[in-house]
């Protein structure tokens, strides 16, 4: 094998095991973190129920997917869950509007401090947690169907003649595509529409927004709807890409918060950048670089170990470390959001 081919193999290896998975995972985190940041920007509290809201929406989507599958309806090469997605989104919008009406509105009328909202959201989190486990159970569920690969490793190897293969799964391509589309639409909405601008104004300076005649109830309602849509998208894409398990979805709250705070809480752009940074840090820190060393180092120099910084079991530690470092060093985050 020539040196050039070795470098190519190393590049493909990194693309296959780091770049593509991290891009997909980063897109899922970005969608979730934007939801957290939107709620923070408008309602001024960190919503601990976001992970479980995501689990609820994904659960509804899975039920609906099963129904479609048993009725013999599919989306061809794409996962059937895409057809079920609108139902999951509508159900979740109804859920968050109801929790707002019966939980958060009460504290809003009383002008409670943010910590009260946070504790209330922990309560909502536990309720949803229980509800989802009651309805679908705590087990791991796979609901991906349709064509598995856009490019499979075998095809790639055959057409390029390289030893390493690059595979792109349909769900990964779908995740990245949907995330780009959703974020583009969100930014168009926030930057160009009257309602979007009024939300930014409300987030920027609530008192002045009220003096301008902006209706706070409407702004809050739209924020919940957007957060629900983003949460279900993130949840369904994550579930398609990996699998659905209520406990994992609850755990995703940590990288969401890490991403939102790293980017600057209240700043949608920051949440997206933060999502990708957290994902790339997690994937690069838990990847075993042994094979990469085989390609790049002279044969005698390759160490015996796996060359893995951190076991994948500890991947949530990455989010924790990022969170702690940001809060210590730059609490406003990259894009100068608010300080929690």
């Amino acid at each position: 094998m020539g040196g050039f081919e070795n470098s190519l193999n190393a590049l493909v290896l990194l693309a296959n095991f780091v770049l593509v998975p991290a891009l997909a995972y980063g897109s899922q985190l970005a969608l979730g973190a934007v939801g957290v940041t939107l709620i923070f920007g408008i309602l001024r509290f960190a919503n601990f129920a976001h992970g479980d809201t995501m689990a609820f929406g994904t659960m509804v989507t899975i039920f609906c997917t099963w129904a479609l599958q048993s009725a013999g309806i599919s989306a061809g090469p794409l996962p059937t869950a895409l057809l079920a997605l609108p139902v999951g989104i509508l159900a979740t919008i109804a859920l968050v509007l109801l929790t707002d009406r019966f939980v958060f509105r009460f504290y809003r009328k009383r002008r409670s401090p943010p910590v009260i909202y946070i504790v209330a959201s922990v309560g909502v989190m536990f309720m949803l947690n229980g509800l989802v486990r009651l309805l679908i159970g705590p087990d791991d569920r796979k609901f991906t169907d349709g064509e598995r690969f856009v490019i499979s490793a075998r095809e790639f190897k055959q057409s390029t003649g390289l030893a390493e293969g690059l595979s792109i799964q349909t769900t990964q391509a779908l995740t990245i595509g949907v995330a780009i589309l959703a974020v583009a639409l969100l930014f168009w909405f926030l930057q160009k529409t009257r309602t979007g601008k009024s939300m930014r104004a409300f987030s920027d300076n609530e008192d002045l927004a009220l003096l301008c005649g902006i209706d706070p109830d409407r702004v809050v309602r739209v924020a919940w709807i957007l957060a629900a849509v983003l949460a279900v998208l993130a949840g369904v894409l994550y579930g398609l890409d990996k699998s659905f398990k209520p406990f994992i979805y609850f755990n995703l709250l940590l990288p969401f918060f890490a991403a939102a705070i790293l980017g600057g809480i209240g700043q949608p752009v920051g949440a997206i950048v933060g999502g990708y940074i957290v994902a790339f840090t997690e994937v690069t820190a838990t990847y075993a670089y042994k094979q990469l060393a085989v390609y790049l180092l002279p044969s005698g120099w390759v160490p015996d170990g796996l060359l893995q910084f951190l076991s994948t079991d500890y991947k949530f530690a990455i989010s924790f470390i990022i969170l702690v470092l940001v809060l210590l060093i730059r609490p406003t985050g990259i894009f100068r959001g608010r300080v929690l």
Partner: protein
Amino acid sequence: MGVLLAGYEMTGGYGGPPILQDCTITAEAGQITVIVGPNGAGKSTAMKALLGMLELSAGRVELAGRDIGLLSPQERVAQGIGFVPQTQNIFTGMTVLENLQMGAFLRADDGAEIIEQLVQLFPVLAEKADQQAGALSGGQRQQVAVARALMNEPSVLLLDEPTAGVSPVVMDELFDRIIEVAKTGIAVLMVEQNARQALEIADRGFVLVGGENRFTDTGQALLADATVRRSFLGG
């Protein structure tokens, strides 16, 4: 032209002991009215009472002869009272143009015509239209803040210390603009720390002490009054 906005014999505060005692403030269309007085005299409180931001235990507030005492601040804004708070009076993360658009939120149209008129008065609005309002200088921010309040075409404009923290040169410039605003027929009512300069441009001045009216006269008469000069204008 008669009295447009008036608070008569207002008594009230923020829940504790009353800050305003039997305080009367009136503002006439096309005139500049200034509230001055020492620190803690209740100047800003009197203005906030007119906007409905505190509960009055006695007295009444009228806009163009109608009692508006039961309306919320938002409803009073919709009725034609523009208010520029002393601090945090712009949307710092939004562009100058977006700030103006938010000021036009209650309008049926998008306010493009008003923006054209306001640009005549505040050229900075056009020059910096696409810049983040938070990146502007203190004087420019105040102009954006005043323009934002004018977008709704109010009949009364309330300014809470519009020249706080700006240099004397900028202060003179701001006062010039405020005179122009009053010339369009709007009743301008402002609270000012820079009492002497403010009274110079004022048609009418209210000197408050301890939440009560101490002196009320034309700006020139107050400036000429030896007692007012000695007690409140530093000689």
